[in-house]
């Protein structure tokens, strides 16, 4: 299972989403030296149950297993459950049990979905379009959350951008 095949399935199902988090920041990298190690891929969804359900179904069609907390993986996915998940802004994880862990999140600290989605940038991976949040939104969200791992990322990221900061007139 490749990440680009998941994105292709989401695009085919016309799911509205945008990639955020460290994985999103990595798409803005210029070279391998500015790519950060991360285990997770965060996919930000709007608070829309039908869209959420479409995202789950696309992931399952790609062979990913869905889970939410300790919930059994064989639970039926339907609009009722999607509505409850959206109401509670709960996170649903899709994983292939090997190297791909995708978090479908309805929350991006400091931001609502629409402004992030409207200013997204589309990049390409193996010919598949991938909507990625603006880097300024990703770092601002990290700053708003302020967990230790976010602070570490921000410090490392500022170092990666050091040449641009130093070049400033």
């Amino acid at each position, binding site marked *: 299972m*490749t*990440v*680009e095949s998941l994105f292709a399935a989401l695009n085919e199902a016309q799911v509205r989403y945008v990639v955020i988090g460290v*994985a999103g920041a*990595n*798409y*803005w*990298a*210029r070279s*391998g030296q500015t*790519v950060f*190690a*991360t*285990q997770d891929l965060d996919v930000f969804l709007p608070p829309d149950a039908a869209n959420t359900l479409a995202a789950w179904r696309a992931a399952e069609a790609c062979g990913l297993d869905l889970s*939410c*907390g*300790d*919930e059994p993986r064989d*639970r039926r996915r339907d609009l009722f*459950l999607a509505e*409850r*998940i959206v*109401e*509670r*802004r*709960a*996170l649903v994880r899709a994983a292939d049990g*090997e*190297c791909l862990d995708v978090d479908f999140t309805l929350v991006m*600290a400091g931001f609502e979905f629409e402004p992030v989605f409207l200013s997204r*940038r*589309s*990049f*390409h*991976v*193996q010919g598949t*379009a*991938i909507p990625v949040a*603006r*880097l*300024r939104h990703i*770092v*601002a969200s990290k*700053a*708003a*959350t*302020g*967990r230790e791992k*976010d*602070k570490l990322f*921000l410090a490392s990221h*500022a170092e990666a*951008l050091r040449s*641009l*900061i130093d070049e*400033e007139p």
Partner: protein
Amino acid sequence: MLALLDAYARAPRVSNPVELSSAYLRAVERWEALPENAVGSDKSWVVRSQRAWKEHFAKARAGNRG
């Protein structure tokens, strides 16, 4: 299931925001505007890089278990 979701929704969200410097934010804007980050840029190499990293660590974890 709903009880689990309710517990999740009630859980406090720990937040300790940090302030980003204006120089860093200007650098981020310039970074976004680089030719490598234009709309439609091919980023296949990013995915290859992340995949290689994950496979490396998956093997390392498997080695530690074995």
